[in-house]
């Protein structure tokens, strides 16, 4: 019986996001939200491990009250329980403060044998909360998992997708694994689970429930602060040339010479 925890994040569906002028973080109110797509693969893997090995899957998220929708959606896929970490004091948390809050919540849940996260969230794209959470909990972390298997009791083997191929690592449980989308194909939700999810009372844990001091969480507990968020500068104009290789090479050589002259 494995205790599996899946950490998810609710993210804005649109790329057209607004920024909070004070905290410089993304404004989420009033924008349609979805479960971070990578987290759906983490949830699916958690559910598959549960189906194969037995156990429970608990989904947790930190966010504003509306993040409860993401948890209900996760319950609709078949998760056994959900906890929402929500408190004004948590607002503006950076990746460290977020990881610390999640770590405390998992401790309050009685720990976990396996923790799954997506490789990163599509809004902040930091890919930091997973590894920081593992560091705070002092458990092994395996990133970019494309395959998870259990060679022996208390151990998990993880194939990690790298830029050129993959490697395989074996870690001891409890462990935290971040997954890539190659790991599985998420299932469709179940109608019965969705009906149950609609009625399920989802506990909301705040600062007091986690026994953390206010200065350890949220903006106050953050080591980093977002100074500015901006779209990446547009790359220079690109051109596509077609033709025979020698002609193209000659043309390119001429262009480079012109550039070099212009640059003095």
């Amino acid at each position: 019986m494995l205790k599996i925890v899946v950490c998810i994040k609710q993210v804005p569906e649109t790329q057209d996001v607004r920024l909070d002028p004070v905290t410089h973080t993304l404004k989420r109110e009033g924008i349609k939200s979805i479960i971070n797509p990578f987290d759906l693969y983490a949830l699916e893997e958690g559910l598959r491990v549960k189906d194969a090995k037995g156990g429970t899957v608990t989904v947790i998220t930190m966010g504003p009250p509306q993040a409860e929708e993401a948890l209900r959606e996760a319950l609709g896929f078949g998760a056994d329980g959900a906890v929402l970490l929500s408190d004004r004091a948590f607002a503006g948390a950076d990746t460290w403060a977020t990881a610390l809050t999640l770590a405390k919540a998992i401790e309050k849940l009685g720990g976990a044998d396996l923790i799954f996260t997506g490789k990163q969230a599509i809004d902040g794209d930091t890919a930091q909360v997973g590894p920081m959470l593992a560091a705070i909990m002092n458990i092994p972390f395996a990133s970019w998992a494309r395959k998870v298997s259990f060679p022996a009791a208390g151990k998990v083997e993880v194939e990690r997708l790298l830029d050129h191929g993959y490697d395989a690592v074996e870690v001891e449980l409890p462990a935290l694994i971040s997954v890539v989308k190659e790991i599985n194909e998420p299932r469709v939700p179940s109608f019965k689970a969705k009906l149950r999810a609609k009625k399920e009372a989802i506990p909301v844990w705040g600062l007091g429930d986690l026994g953390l001091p206010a200065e350890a969480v949220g903006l106050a507990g953050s080591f980093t602060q977002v100074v500015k968020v901006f779209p990446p500068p547009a790359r220079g104009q690109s051109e596509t040339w077609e033709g025979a290789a020698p002609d193209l090479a000659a043309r390119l050589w001429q262009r480079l010479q012109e550039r070099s002259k212009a640059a003095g």
Partner: protein
Amino acid sequence: MDYLLTEEQRMLQDLAREIAQERIKPIRAQLDEEEIFPTEIIKDLAQADLCGTIIPEEYGGLGLGTLENCLVLEALAMGCVGVATTYAASFLGAYPLLMYGTEAQKSRYLPAIAKGEALAAFALTEPQAGSDAGAIAATAVKDGDFYVLNGNKQWITNAGEAEFYTVIALTDKSKGVRGASALMVEKSDPGISFGKKEQKMGIRASVTREVVLEDCRIPKERLLGKEGLGFIITMKTLDLARPGAGSLAVGLAQEALDEAAAFAKERQQFGAPIFSFQAVQHLLADMATKIEAARALVYAVARYIDTKPKDYSKVAAMAKLFPTDMAMGVTVDAVQVMGGHGYMREYPVEKMMRDAKILQIYEGTNQIMRNIIGLALNKEYSKKK
């Protein structure tokens, strides 16, 4: 249009739409082109609990009614009518069990169907018995504790893929249709085999084969209801299924309209999107109006059936006739709106037009629907004198 659906009904509709959109639509052209049976999609539908929509909760289903079934079928048909037919045909095989099965029979078959582990099929049609269903020649002869079945069932949807077959056969040849009975035959029974996969104009993701019964020996407990009830069971099954066929038509026509309208917004001719031309708008307006009329009829009849009236053959036939004739017309017009593009297999509407045709034919041709409605009217107006 708001049809005053409950929150639960809307959730069900959303779930089926999500599956149609994300799992069916991306591969429907390939399923059609390569005639692939949609095994993976059936697994998704099972995972979503949709294989048990109409099956009672005590057998692992959702215990929902005709309207809910129609909502799911309409949504799935927006993805692919071939897939939706596969799904619907399993319920066609299950309806006789639901209506006439004993506790033991229901427990044996319904949970596997609800879980999506097994598909069912309904085997009525024969080479010489199509619209004239009373002309069936397949026999089921009692032999001690067994029935021995012989005969050929033609064009059976899901044949070869389904685990369970509701077969209509004569237990007493001398009584004609009154000697027909319904029996459950399993794929693993001795003496059942299947013909080649038929090559069809449309709904090519679904499979249609002949079911051949040669001294197929089954325990006598497989009889549904009583001997001689076969024809009544058939009629009641088809009555119950007909609004479902109507729903497939509504979903199909809606998808064709959506495709044609989106195309008309993009396609430029004479310096403007073709949507701006009245000739095109009138086509689209007629399509939209007919679809809404058909949907309203199907929902109204489905709701009426869910009140458990004694006889609803007439309105069930109407709920099949009008939407399926409508879908044929609407899909032809969708191709017309899209012109040469619509005729190309690169675009989805030519498939929809091919798929629409079967809806006017199967589960009782639309001519038979008019017979049923005419017969009922004749009775009604005879009484009124």
